[in-house]
Each structure stands twice: as C-alpha cells, then as structure tokens.
C-alpha cells in the first residue's frame, strides 16, 4: 500500500519534470545544437569527422573479427562483419554519450551557478548531441549493409524500439553520473575506467553465445541484449530473445525514473556544491 503511493508520487514527479523540460524544449534544442556546432568548429574537416569516426570504429571491428577467424582457422563470414558493424555504431554512441553526459554539468559551471534553468537539460542535451553523430553513423552502416548484400525483413521494426531503449538507458546513466560527478569528481574517473573495460563485458566484437553456459552473466549487462537484439533482427532476420529484451527495457525505464528522482532531489545543492 505504502509502496504504491510512493511509486505513484514518483511517477507523477517524473511526469512533472518531463513537462518542465517540454516547456523549455527550445532551450534543450539550442543547447544540443550548441554542443554539435562547437564540436566541429575550427576543424578543417568539420562534419566529415562525424562520418569518418564510425568508419574507423567499424573497420577496427573488422580487423578484430578477421583476427578471430584467422586464429580459429574458420572461414571469414560476411555475416560476422555486418554483425560487428551493426553493434559497433550503437556501442560507440553509448560510450561517447555517457562520457559526455557525465561531464555535462561540470563543463557548464557558468550556467549552473549563475543562471537558473532546468539542469536536467545538460545531461540530456549531451546525449542528444551524440545522437547526431549516431545518426550519421547509422547512415554509414546502412550503406555498408546494403553493399554487403543484407536484405530487408519485417524484423527491422525492432530497431526503433531497441534504439529507444538504449537512449533511455544511456540518458538515465548520464543523469546519475553527471549529478554524482558534480559532488565528487571521482565519479568522472570511475566512469572512464568502466567505459574502458566495458568493451570486454559487452558483446560488441563477439557474440554472447561464445560464452556458452556463462552467457546470462554477459546478458545481465543491460546493454548486451540490446546490441545482440540489433544484430539478430537486422542480420539474422530473427526475433530477438524476448526475455532478455524485456529485462533490458525494464532496467532502463526503472533507472530512468530513479535517475530523475535523484536528480530532482540534488538539484537545489548544485550551485553551491559544484
């Protein structure tokens, strides 16, 4: 009974927060736009970097897969290549969005301490600005897939849902870590370490099935089912494992709600603690 009231209250607070954000959507747009714009200012290649970066990441994946195949003595399958490409782009988005989101409050000291605005905008704008790069990367990967002869199927309808879940998850983490790193700069380093090693615990360059009985351990990382799901749906044209998918989704949404509640609670102390 008590828990129900608590949840109800929490959810209404979350909606209230989202309503506030919606009212200031122009600001969210402008801050996101600023991040994108500033990122490529005063660089000779400018926006070309947004295309080049995913290409580099995909080719890195290719090299790894090729090495795997050589060592195992198995033939080099085209499906492996496309699978890596499909998983590497969202993973790169996840990493950069989280890294950028964690620092989003600290790097906007001026705005946090001197002007009042809904501060939730900063981690969200950081994530959204990385989505721009992700969009470009998606276009590059799509072209690659077409060139590799991957065909359409109804399973592609899973893609928007999977990406959306990924965005909710990374937003939630960015919100939590941005607020935490404002109080303790240690968080910044912890996130760096986590991101550096996370590539080993996330099936980006390999499949979780590689681990046999230990696969569930790997899949309990909420990012894993999403990436695997993408490759299953796009490359293998199969329905992703629903259990793990709903697990990821539930974790993401719960984290998101908790993150917003925590952020709201800490918000009044930001200006004096930064």
């Amino acid at each position, binding site marked *: 009974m008590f828990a129900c009231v608590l949840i109800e209250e929490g959810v209404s607070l979350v909606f209230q927060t989202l309503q506030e954000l919606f009212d200031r959507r122009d*600001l969210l747009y402008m801050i996101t736009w600023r991040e994108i714009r500033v990122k490529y200012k005063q660089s000779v290649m400018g926006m070309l970097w947004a295309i080049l970066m995913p290409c580099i990441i995909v080719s890195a994946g290719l090299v790894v897969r090729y090495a795997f195949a050589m060592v195992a003595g198995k033939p080099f399958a085209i499906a492996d290549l496309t699978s890596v490409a499909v998983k590497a782009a969202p993973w790169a988005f996840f990493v950069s969005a989280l890294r950028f989101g964690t620092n989003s409050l600290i790097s906007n000291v001026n705005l946090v301490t001197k002007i009042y*605005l809904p501060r939730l905008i900063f981690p969200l704008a950081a994530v959204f600005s990385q989505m721009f790069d992700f969009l470009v990367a998606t276009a590059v990967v799509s072209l690659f897939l077409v060139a590799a002869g991957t065909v359409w199927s109804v399973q592609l309808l899973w893609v928007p849902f999977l990406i959306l879940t990924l965005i909710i998850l990374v937003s939630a983490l960015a919100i939590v870590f941005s607020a935490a790193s404002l109080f303790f700069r240690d968080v910044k380093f912890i996130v760096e370490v986590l991101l550096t090693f996370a590539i080993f615990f996330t099936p980006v360059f390999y499949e979780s099935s590689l681990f046999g009985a230990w696969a569930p351990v790997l899949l309990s990382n909420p990012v894993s089912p999403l990436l695997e799901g993408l490759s299953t749906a796009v490359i293998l044209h199969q329905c992703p494992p629903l259990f793990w998918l709903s697990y990821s989704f539930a974790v993401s949404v719960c984290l998101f709600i908790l993150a917003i509640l925590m952020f709201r609670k800490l918000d*009044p102390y930001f200006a004096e603690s930064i």
Partner: protein
Amino acid sequence: MADNVLNVQHVFKKFRRGELYDSLRELVPAIARRLLRREQGKDLDQREFWALRDVSFQVERGEAFGIIGGNGAGKSTILKLLTGIMRPTKGSIRVAGRISALIEVSAGFHQDLTGRENIYLNGAILGMTREQIHKRFDEIVDFSGLEEFIDTPVKRYSSGMFARLGFSVAAHVDPDVLLVDEVLSVGDYLFQRKCLERMHAVIRSGATVVFVSHNLREVANLCQRSLLLERGQVQLVGPTEEVIGDYYRRGQQQRLSPANSVDRGLWITQVKVHGKNGPGVEFQSGDKLYITVEANAWNRYEDMSVVIAVVDKNQYLVFDTCTQRLGTGAITLDRDQTLRCTFELDLNLTEGTFHVHAYLHRYVTDRAYDSWLSAATFFVTGAPEARGVVTLHPRLTECNVGKTSRLETLRQPLAREGSYD
C-alpha cells in the same frame, strides 16, 4: 492594494567555509551524521556561517526595489535565491510571474560561437522561444551596436563588446520581475545611458524591478524603496533616500573604530556638522552651517590644507573649499599634535540630503594624506521657491503683462546686457 510579486519570509541561508570535504576521513562521518540527524538547518557547524539571517521583504507589482549593502552583505545571495539557483536553508520565497535576471548576462555565451549564434543560444537560456528571438533579432543587434561583428566568434570580442551583447539579449526578454545586479557597470558611457533608459522603460511598462548595486546614484535614480543589508541581516527597509542616508551613517560609525586608522601617521578623527544652536542633522535652507574637522598626527606633516566638499544624494559635487583658498597658508602638524578647523557656510541649498567629504590634502604633491568620504550627512528643508541643488535666492523684480511691441523693445537692451564682449 498590496499586490506582492515577491514575498520573502524569514529566509536563512547557510554556507560553508573552506572545501566541501577535505578528505575521505571527514566525508564518512559527515554522511553518517546527515543520515542520523534528519533535522537540518538549525545549528551551525564549526565551519558554517549564515550568509542570510531572517531576511523578509515584499516587493509590489510595478515597483522598483533596491538592495544596497557592502561587499559580502548577502545581496547576490538574495538574488540567487530569488532566481532559484539556490534554495534557502529555511524560510520561504514566493514569486508571482516570470522572473528574469540581468545577472551575469554573458554567462551563457560560448566562446567559439559567433555573435549571431550566441544571441539565439543566450535568448533560449534566458527563457525566450526561438520564434521570439527571431522576431527581435534585429532589435537586439541594433541595441548592441555590433552589426559589423555579428558573424565573428565572440572569443575575438573585447570584454566591452562581450558584455554589451550579453546585456542586449537580456534587455529584450520581457519578464514580470527583472533582477539586476551590477550589470550597468559595463560598456562605455553612452551604452550605460542606453541601459538605464531601457531599465526605466521596463519600469514604466509595469514590470517589477529588483536592483542591486554599489552605485548609489543609480539606485536612488531608479528605486522608490530600498533595503539595506549588512552581514546577511536586514537593517532597514524604506524610502531609498532614507536607506542610503542610513547606509552612510553606518559608514561613519565604522570609520571611528580604531582598526581603520591605526597604521596611519595622520588621520581625520572627527567631522561634525552643526548649526547656530549646536549639533544637528536637519537645517533650514539659508541657515548658517558649521563643519568642524579634527585630525591627529603621529608624525610631522607639512604643507597641508584641510578640504571639505559637500555632495548631494547622488554624489554630485555641490561645493568644495579648503583652508589654503581661505587664506590660512600651509598648515604644519608636529608629532602628537591635533588640528581642529571649523568652516562657516551659508546653506544656500534646496531641500534634500547632503553628505560631507573631508580630506587632508598636501599641496606640493597633490595627494591626500587622509580622506573621509561621506563623513557626515545632513538634511536641508525649506527653499520652496527653488528646485535643483542650490538656491540662487530668486526675487521677482518684474512681471508685467503687455502688448507685443513693448516686449520687443524690452528684449533688445536685455540681450545686450547679457553678452560677454
């Protein structure tokens, strides 16, 4: 009708000195304490202090309200609480309507973006929609006077240009309540005038303005009512003129404390204003006014003269004189000697508040041994015939009504008398 736009009730704000947590060893007990003791904000930790204590005031709709006080009195903290950047430790703040702050107007700028891009960005930060900014864009650029440089990254701007652009954007947000903190000190004289005009226009349009400044002249010009803040506590709320007068009187008391004068060899000990019938602060226009300056010397000082200046409530110089000009010649003070001079003045001033500055001036090097600004304050009443600062004792010698032709003959000799050849 009391239509309060801002209602601040018994607000307390606590701050910490030093780092938040110096080490992990401190952090853990601090967290434990916080978890155990739910009640916060009552007692002070050793390193905590009150930045604001029991501050209450109301501001009515359409009013211009000033907040004055020395450095560290808590003025900016109040504004930060009003905007919502920080929350009070105790007490409540109620704001009716949209609040906008002209505080740190260029805080939202990004160095790498151009002026044009920054206008859009800053406008959004200050609460305008993109459409609104788009509509007022030309007006903003025009106000800033930066048309030529609008497509240059703002990192190439001078600090004056930077601040001008910031103010221009902020001045075009239409708020219900406008908070202003020391922003008028930017830009050249003309731009400052423009800003002040803009503020007057905002006040005329019915918006409420809260104005924080060290520039008392501006506060007196803009605000009907003011609040005097000292070490986080409200000292006085009332008509601006009274509050400024009180602020000056407090300055005098502080001056008398030995801490301010101990390391000097020569200093003014007292500046007193009195009339024919002894000391006072209120005088009738046309009275005799006596200003007595006393000084002590710890060493030998030569070639000295005593200067007094009378300024009006806006700090404009009305009059000054000195012993040298009055024919005493240079004064020399020896070790442990005291000096006392009294000036007699005809108080040909109009109604208002006036302050006395006193200086011990050295003629040869043209520098002051000691100065005491606003050492005394007095009020003048009377002189209903005159407006302005001084009364030139007007008398009407002629006021005839007649035909045009006669007036013309009258005008000619007058014009000749008035010329300077």
